[in-house]
C-alpha cells in the first residue's frame, strides 16, 4: 500500500536521475539481446560476436559490450545468420567496411604469416639451438 507507492516513487527518481550518457532514446534492437531460436545458429552467432571488435569501446568484443552500436552489430550478426549466411560471410562484410581491425581473429595472409607461423617456428628453432645440450645414449 503506502510502501508500494514509496517504492514506485523511488524507482522513478532513480530512473530520472540516471544520466543520459550520449545514448539514444530508442531501446536496444530486438536481436541485440535476444537469442536466436535455433541453438546451432545462436552458437554460430555467439562465436562470431566474440570475435568482432566493438567500434566505440576500449578493447572489447561486441559480445561483451553495453554500447548501443555494439548491440546493433549483434543484431546485424544474428539477423544475417538467421537468414542463412555463414559467419565468415558476415565477418567479411564487416571487414570490407572497417578493415581487419574489426576482427579479433587476424586474417591468414602474407602480412600475418609471422603470427601464425611463430609457434612452430619458435619451437623448431628453440629445439635446434638446444641440440648441443643433449646427449643421445647409444646402445
Amino acid at each position: 500500500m503506502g510502501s508500494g507507492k514509496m517504492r514506485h516513487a523511488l524507482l522513478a527518481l532513480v530512473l530520472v536521475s540516471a544520466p543520459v550518457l550520449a545514448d539514444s532514446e530508442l531501446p536496444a534492437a530486438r536481436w541485440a539481446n535476444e537469442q536466436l531460436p535455433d541453438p546451432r545458429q545462436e552458437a554460430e552467432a555467439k562465436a562470431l560476436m566474440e570475435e568482432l571488435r566493438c567500434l566505440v569501446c576500449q578493447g572489447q568484443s561486441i559480445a561483451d559490450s553495453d554500447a548501443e552500436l555494439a548491440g546493433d552489430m549483434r543484431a546485424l550478426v544474428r539477423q544475417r545468420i538467421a537468414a542463412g549466411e555463414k559467419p565468415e560471410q558476415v565477418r567479411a562484410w564487416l571487414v570490407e567496411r572497417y578493415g581487419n581491425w574489426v576482427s579479433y581473429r587476424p586474417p591468414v595472409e602474407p602480412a600475418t604469416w609471422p603470427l601464425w607461423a611463430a609457434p612452430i617456428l619458435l619451437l623448431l628453432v628453440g629445439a635446434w639451438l638446444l641440440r648441443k645440450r643433449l646427449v643421445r645414449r647409444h646402445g
Partner: protein
Amino acid sequence: MIAEAGLAALWLAAALSALQLALSFGLGGEQGREMRAVRAVALAQGLLTLFAFGALIAVFLNSDMSVLLVAENSHSQKPWIYKFAGAWGNHEGSMLLWVAVLALAGAVVALFERRLDERTLGATLGAQAALALGFFAFLLFASNPFERLNPAPLDGRGLNPLLQDPGLAFHPPTLYLGYVGLSVAFSLAVGGLIQGNVGPALARAMRPWVLAAWILLTLGITAGSYWAYYELGWGGWWFWDPVENASLMPWLAATALLHSVNVLAARGGLRAWTMMLALVAFSMSMAGTFLVRSGILTSVHAFAVDPTRGTFILALLALYIGGALTLFAFRIADVKEGAPFELVSREGGLVANNLLLSVILGIVFLGTLYPLIAEALSGEKLSVGPPYFDSVAGPMALVLASLMMIAPQLRWRRDAAPILPRLAPGVLVALAVLVGTFILTPGIGLLPRLGLAIGGGLLPASLQPLIGRSLRRTPLATWGMAIAHFGVATAILGMASDSAFTREQLAAARPGETVEVGPWLVEFRSVSPVAGPNWTALEGELRASKGSGVTVLKPQSRFFPSPPTTTNEAAIDTSWNGQLYAVLGEQDGQGRWQLRLWWKPFVTLIWLGGILIGLGGALALVGRMARERRQRIRGEEAFA
C-alpha cells in the same frame, strides 16, 4: 606537512640509492667495513621509501584535497578501504608502491643474504641500487605523487567505480610484490655475470626470491581474473587484453625460471638458461609497467598517462634491459656449463618445459605487439585477440600439461628404466576421460575435449611422486611440486569445463515470469531501488531452483554520482558443481527487463587451481627455507 615529509623521504632515499651504487663499486678493499656501510644504506633506503608510501596512504585516508593525486582519485565519502586502496589505484601511487617494494627488497637482500661471497653480493646490491635510482628519478621528476593543488577543491573527483571493490585492496599490491620481487633475481644475475660467479650458490640465493615472487604473481593474476569475472558482468575470466598479457609474461618467464633455478641449485646445470630467464623475467615486468602507463595500448585496464612519461620509462627500460642483456651476451661465454644430459631424463624434461614456456611467452609477446608492428610497417590496423591466443597458446599449454604428466616421473641425468609403467596412471585416466567425453558429451569442441582429458590425466600423475614414499619424510618441496601441478590440472579442468559446458540465456522478462538456464528455473520477482554509501541502484530479485531448495539472487544496475558511471553488479550463486551468474540489464519500452543468465559448471576450479598452485609454491618455499636454516644451524654447531 605529511605530503612534504613523504616527498623529502623520497629525495633522501634516491640520494641513498646513488650512494649505494657508488659504494658497491668500491667493494673488494676493506670488505668488512664497506659491506656494513652498504647494508646500512640499503636499510635506510628501504625504510625511507616505506615511510614515503605510508605518507601517501595517510593523505588519502585523511582525504587531504590539497594533494593533487587525492583530489583526482578520491572522495571524502568513500568507504575507508577505498581511500586506502585508492592510493595505488592510479599511476603515481602505484609507481610509488613499485619503488617501495624495490627498495625494501634491496634492504632485505642486503641484511639477510649470507650465502654469497661479498664481491657477488656487492655487485648485486649495486645493480639493485642502479634500478632504484632510475625509478626514483622517474617518480620524482615525472610522476610526483605528492604534488600540491592550490587552491584545494572542496572534494575530490572520486575513484572509478569499477575499482571500488575489495579486489583493489588485494590484486595490485600482490602483483607488484611479484613483479618487483623478480628484480632481485635480475640483480643477482647481473651480479653473478659481472663477477663471473654463476653457480649453485647464486641459484640458492636466487631461488627464494623467484619462488616468493612467482607465488605472489600466481595469486595476483588469479585474483585479477576472478575480479574481472564478477565485476565486468559478461561471464568471461580472461580476455587476452594487452594489460593482462603484460602480467602473464613475467609469470611465464618466472615459471620457467623457477624450474631452471632448481636445476642450477641442485645439479649445477642450465646456467646460461637460468641467467637469461632471470634477466628476461624482470625485463618483462618493466616492459609491462611501461606498456600500461605509456598510453600506447588501448585497454580498459590502462592508466591514463601521457607519452612523455612513456618516453621516460622507455629510456629507463632500454638502459637497464639493454645493459643487462649486453652483459649477458658478452659474459655468458665464460660460464662453464655442466655435463650434458640425456633427452629422457628429469633435466631433459625441464629443458623441454623451459622451451615450451619460452615459446608461449614468445607467442604472447608477439601477439600483443603485432598490431603495433604491423601498423608501423604497413600502416594497416589489425587486431589480435582471443581467437588468436586461444587457438595458439591453448594447444601449446596442453602440450606442456602433457609434459607435466611425464617429466616428474623421470630420474635425473639418465633414465634407463622402463618408463611406460610409470606413466600408466596418468595416461589411462586421460584416455578414459577422452572416451567418456565422446560418449557423454559428443558435441563439445576439440580443445575443451583435450583439456578435459589431459587435465584429468594430470590429476593422478601430479600426485604420483608422493606415492610409495614415507609421506612424513617426503621433503616439503616435493609436496609443493605435487600440489602445484595438481593445481594446474584443476585449473585446466575448470577452463575446459567452462568452455565446453557453459549455458547462456538472454531474456526480456516481466516480473513474475520464469526463465530456464541449464538445470535451473529462475523466477524473476521484482526490481526495486536501493542505495549504498556512495551509490544508488536498481536491484532485481531472482529466485532460482534446480530441484530442491531456492536460492535468491540480487543483481544490481548501480549508479555512482562521482564520477558519473553505471556498473553492473552481477549476482553469483556458487554450488559444488558450478556457478549461476545473473546480470540485470535495461528496461525495454514495454515493461520488460533484460536478464542475462549463465550456468557455468565447475568454473570455480579455475581459481581454485590458481590458489592450489600458489599453495604448492608456498609449501616449497617454506620447506626450502626451513631446510636451509636447519643446515646452517647444523653447520654452525659443527664449528662450535
